[in-house]
């Protein structure tokens, strides 16, 4: 399978990328790790006229502790998240979720920014970023704009980014010492989640993200409201499928996914919640 023909530009800076996007508008697509886009192009489900390769924009590959939050460059690869000591200390959920994306070869290339911008409900990192209450930083012709993760995903494979905008950074509040859990249900190693759950719980923040339970990555808001209202993790987990619209496909029906979500959220909360309740 070979993609249809396109023009290729490689840029080394954010400014260069924004200039290319401004010139080509929605004819162009950014190429980061290419591990969502190239498969789509090979299947001819995507056929951009211009590819703007941002894979070497070094200024966007970083993981920084800025005091109250962590700042992660959009082009940071899954492998770098997986082994980052900063994430291990302050956001182990994200490092762990990254270590379950695809396989080592995929993690050597794929980026966190590409994973979010691609807005695939079956992706692992968006659910983790949602659960942690992350904020995305986009840069465009009008400057920088901050988008809470909860307002970023618009529809299936669709985010609120404009064609002339680029995701440059992901900000995650530091939740040092918080309880957390990542549950990914697959039939075989390396597969995408049939359903996944990313949960984090501390004295100040509780978040539960769902993988593959709708047209976008989702938050299980009913679960969190129940917990905040004093429900036990087991009772709260029964609300895991409220407000979701899971797909039916070869891996399972919508009803099966709803059941899985309740089971996995229960497991996730049992793992994430008691830890911090004990130190509250």
């Amino acid at each position, binding site marked *: *399978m070979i993609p249809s023909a396109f023009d290729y530009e490689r840029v080394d800076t954010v400014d260069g990328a924004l200039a290319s996007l401004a010139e080509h508008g929605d004819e162009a697509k950014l*190429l980061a790790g290419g*591990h969502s886009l190239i*498969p789509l192009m090979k299947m001819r489900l995507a056929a951009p006229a211009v590819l703007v390769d941002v894979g070497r924009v070094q200024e966007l590959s970083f993981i920084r502790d800025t005091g109250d939050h962590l700042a992660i460059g959009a082009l940071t690869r899954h492998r770098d998240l997986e082994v980052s000591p900063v994430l291990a200390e302050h956001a182990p959920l994200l490092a762990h979720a990254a270590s379950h994306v695809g396989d*080592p070869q*995929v993690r050597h290339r794929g980026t966190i920014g590409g994973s979010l911008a691609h807005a695939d409900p079956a992706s692992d990192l968006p659910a983790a970023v949602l659960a942690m209450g992350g904020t995305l930083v986009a840069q465009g012709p009008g400057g920088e704009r901050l988008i809470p993760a909860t307002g970023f995903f618009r529809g299936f494979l669709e985010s609120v980014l404009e064609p002339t905008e680029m995701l440059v950074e992901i900000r995650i509040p530091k939740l040092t010492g918080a309880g957390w859990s990542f549950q990914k249900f697959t039939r075989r190693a390396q597969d995408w989640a049939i359903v996944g759950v990313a949960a984090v719980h501390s004295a100040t923040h509780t978040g539960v993200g769902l993988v593959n339970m709708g047209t976008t990555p989702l938050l299980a808001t009913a679960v969190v409201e129940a917990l905040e209202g004093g429900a036990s993790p087991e009772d709260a987990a029964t609300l895991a499928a409220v407000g979701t619209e899971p797909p039916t496909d070869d891996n399972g029906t919508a009803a099966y996914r709803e059941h899985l979500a309740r089971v996995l959220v229960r497991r996730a909360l049992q793992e994430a919640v008691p830890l911090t309740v004990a130190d509250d």
Partner: protein
Amino acid sequence: MSGTVSVQIQVNGVPHADQVEPRLLLVHYLRDVVGLTGTNVGCDTSSCGACTVLLDGESVKSCTLLAVQADGCSVTTIEGLACGEELHPVQQAFQEEHGLQCGFCTPGMVLAAVSLLCETPEPTEEDVRRGLEGNLCRCTGYHNIVRAVLRAAKEQP
């Protein structure tokens, strides 16, 4: 639209300069332009790992990478591992532990293992199984492959 782009890629230590179409996949560049056919295409959908090569030392699936993305980089294929007649320790261990049958997955499996051992020089069996999750083998049932990688890890200099 789309003329050609010039790329300079070191393949197994040998510099190559070529004009390529941007849509040329790295695996086709290696097989058809450079003429090294050790890298196999299995699934062509990023799933099986048969096309695994090292890009600047890290395992990647060359069916999911454009040749232009490797411009300025160094690529190692299965042809580049042995030192003259002397097999690479991972190749040697695959031979000794019978880590292959038909051999179709082997180039990718060996390169994935080399990358794994670079990152995790003293892996547990679990590390090896997880580390090779991107590579499928229809023949061996994996046990001998895992043994081979553990043996190579022990025998590493």
